[in-house]
Each structure stands twice: as C-alpha cells, then as structure tokens.
C-alpha cells in the first residue's frame, strides 16, 4: 500500500502550493495573450510554457545536477536549469538574438536621414526617468530595489527584449522574469499605449506634415555604417560592445552580400532555435517567490511609465527639431524612437494616416525605430558601466 502512498505523494496535487498554482495560471495567461491577442507570440508563448513547467511541483525542471566525489554526474539536472545556466546566465542567448536582429535590420532609412538618431536618443529618456522612479520608490520605502535593480528595470523603457534580458542577467537576475514579461507585454501593447500620448502632444496639422522622400542609400554606406558604429563603440563605450558588437556583426553579414548563407541561417534557424530556448529560460525565472510580490507590481507600473515617457520624449524631440531645422519632420515618427521594431513604426504610420490618408510615414519612422535599438543598447552599456563596474 505504501507504493500508492508514494505515487500520491509524488503527484502534483499533493505537493502543489498555491503560489505554484497561481504561477501556472500566469503562464496560461501569457499563452492566451500570445495566441488569442497576438502579444509577441514568439516570446510570450515559450515564456508562458516555461512558467508552467517550472511550477510543476516535483518535476525538477530547475534541479541542479549532482556530481559524485570523482566529479562524475550522479544525477542529471533539469532541462530548464541547463537552458538558463548555459544561455541566459552567461548572456549568450540575448547576444545571439541581437546578432540575428542585426542581420534582419535595414539601416537604409536611418542612413537616408541620420538626424533621426536624435529621436532614437530622446526616446531613451524613459529609461533614465524610470531608474530615478525605481530609486525613488525605494527611497520612500515603498519598494526595495537596489541601484542595480533600478537600472535593470529602467531598460524596460528601451522597448527591446534582448537588451532588457541581457542587462537583467548581469544586474538583477532575480527580477529577470518580471522584467522580461513586462518588456514584451508592453511592446505588444505599443498600439494601445502610444497613440493617446502621440495625439495629446501634437496638433492635427503637425500630424499631417508630409516628409521629403528619402534619398537612395548605396550598399557601400550600408556596409560602412555597422563598421563605423562598431569602431565608435570600441573607442567610447566598450561596455556596450557585447550587444552592439554582435548587432553590427549580424548587420555586416547581411549587408556585405558575400556571406548570404550565414546571414540566412542567422535570420532563420539560429535565431529561431535561440528564441525557443531563450523563452523557456526566461519563463523558468517565473517562480512564485520571484514573481508573486509587490516588486513585480512596481516593475509593471514603472515599465508602462517608462514607455509613456519614452514615447513623449521622442515626439517632443521631433517637434523641437522641426522648430530648429528647415526640413519638415512629422512629430509622430518620434514615437518610433522607443524601438519595439517594427511595431512602433507601424503605429506612427497608422496614426499619421488617420490625419492624412495620403501620408505614408512608415519608411520615415523606420529611421528612429532602428535608432532606438542603438539608443537602448548604448543606454544598457552606460548602466552596466555605472552600476556593474
């Protein structure tokens, strides 16, 4: 009869704690949002699945391997343990994803109008305000975030998943799950968060501004650009070199046209495989102790504030540039500076079309959009240099 007892004691029902049950519901919610609402499904579906698996009581998905005295494996670890330790704790997965994103990025619109880099810079204002906010919440005793935690939380405002995961894995591994979920959720919510802010800060005339057609950009420029960026990072901001170095490498593979087979694999098999395991690994940080607490609410709150401020800063910077220079800039494209590629650019295009159905802003918005990726990677480097150094 004790076998039956053992089976029952091994069963999930017996071991399940309420926290685990709630986290499995959170996992199911993420999967629901991914499938039904189309919220960043490439990431939220694997993250949700990882959250469910890691909370199955007694399944040992995060079990550490046990070695005997001679150093041989006595008991293997759980698969999520291996995925997290090999790919996320080391920073390898976000860097490989960033290489893939580089191979998918066309800097043409940015090169045709390099001033849009200012918009990508302005939108990072949300990051730094959020850091202040997180520090402030702790100062007033409402939350308990260290400076490193605050820096990692701020990066949510960068609207760039791999950057947020990379920074969290270095500065605040315990918050990684919540930060990643917040980052991807808000990126999915860009079409809801941004338009009210964009409309509140612009007049309908401003939203109707037609921009000059972009000049053609040659292949040589597209090849020299990632190399220039890389050299500048090397000289002035080495702490951003891991992220931007891999990004420039991916982009150079793409634009050089001489390694198409490598570029194709980077954009397909490699980034897909890495995304699956990155998602599972991030989900494995969604344990009840790490997620079901006040700090997570704080992170979610600060995250949406960061998005809002980033959007506003981008729009306001575009309005300022419009005042200072002769070339007309539609301030809506400033909102695309938060990155969230290409969603934010599409949103700028859509809001622009509402004001002027003949005015396609998509290409113009791609400039600040990819500039925002560079901007948040630079901000990430600054954070790591200040806080982690």
């Amino acid at each position: 009869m004790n076998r039956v007892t053992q089976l029952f004691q091994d069963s999930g029902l017996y071991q399940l704690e309420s926290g685990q049950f709630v986290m499995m519901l959170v996992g199911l919610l993420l999967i629901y949002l991914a499938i039904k609402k189309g919220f960043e499904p490439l990431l939220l579906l694997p993250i949700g699945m990882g959250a469910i698996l890691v909370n199955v009581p007694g399944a040992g998905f995060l079990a550490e391997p046990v070695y005997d005295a001679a150093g041989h494996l006595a008991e293997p670890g759980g698969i999520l343990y291996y995925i997290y330790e090999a790919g996320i704790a080391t920073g390898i997965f976000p860097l490989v994803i960033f290489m893939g994103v580089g191979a998918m990025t066309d800097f043409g619109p940015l090169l045709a109008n390099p001033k849009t880099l200012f918009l990508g810079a302005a939108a990072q204002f949300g990051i730094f305000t959020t850091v202040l906010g997180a520090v402030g919440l702790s100062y007033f005793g409402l939350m308990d975030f260290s400076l490193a935690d605050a820096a990692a939380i701020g990066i949510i405002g960068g609207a760039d998943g791999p950057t947020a995961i990379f920074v969290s894995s270095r500065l605040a591994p315990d918050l990684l799950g919540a930060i990643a979920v917040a980052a991807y959720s808000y990126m999915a919510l860009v079409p809801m968060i941004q338009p009210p802010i964009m409309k509140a800060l612009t007049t309908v005339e401003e939203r109707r501004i037609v921009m000059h057609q972009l000049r053609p950009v040659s292949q040589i420029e597209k090849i020299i650009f990632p190399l220039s960026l890389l050299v500048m990072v090397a000289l002035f901001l080495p702490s951003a070199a891991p992220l931007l170095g891999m990004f420039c490498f991916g982009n150079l593979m793409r634009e050089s046209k001489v390694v198409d087979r490598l570029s194709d694999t980077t954009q397909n098999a490699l980034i897909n495989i890495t995304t699956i395991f990155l998602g599972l690994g991030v989900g494995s940080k969604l344990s009840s102790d790490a997620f079901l607490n006040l700090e997570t609410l704080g992170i979610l709150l600060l995250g949406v504030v960061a998005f809002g401020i980033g959007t506003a800063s981008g729009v306001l910077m575009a309005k300022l540039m419009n005042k200072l220079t002769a070339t007309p800039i539609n301030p809506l494209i400033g909102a695309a500076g938060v990155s969230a590629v290409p969603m934010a650019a599409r949103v700028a295009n859509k809001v622009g079309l509402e004001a002027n159905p003949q005015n396609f802003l998509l290409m113009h918005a791609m400039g600040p959009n990819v500039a925002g990726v560079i901007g948040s990677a630079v901000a990430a480097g600054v954070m790591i240099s200040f806080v982690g150094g």
Partner: protein
Amino acid sequence: MFLGMGTVFVFLTLLVFVTSFMSSLIQKYLPETSPEVLPTATALLSSGKNNPALLAVISAAIHAHRSSNRSNNRPSKNKLT
C-alpha cells in the same frame, strides 16, 4: 541619470556626425552606378511565412533551377566553371 542620458545623446550625436560625414564622402568619391530606388524597411522579427530573406533564397533557387534543367537538376557545372 542626467549623465546617463547625456552619454546617450553625446554618443548618438557623434554618430550623426560620423554617419553624415561617411555618407557624404561615399556619395562624393564612391557613387554607385545603380543605387536602390528607395530604402526599404525590413520586416524585423516577423514570422516566417513571407520573410524576405527566405523569399530571396527561394526565388534565387527557383531561378537557378529553371536555368539548369538540362544539367540533371544540379547546377554544379555552371557554378564551378
């Protein structure tokens, strides 16, 4: 925080100058004979089905396939010579 934001701005401002300088040099000394008509936006992180890279590979492959029917489905001879 101001320092952080400042660094981002200084760095990207520098990048604006470097990029503009680089572009003007290239447009002056290395003009392309047939540049692209328009910079096209890339479908970043889009799902696979009509991914441009895949498409490019496939259309190239189909093209190669059509132009090499007589060589037993293998364009290797063309390739190596």
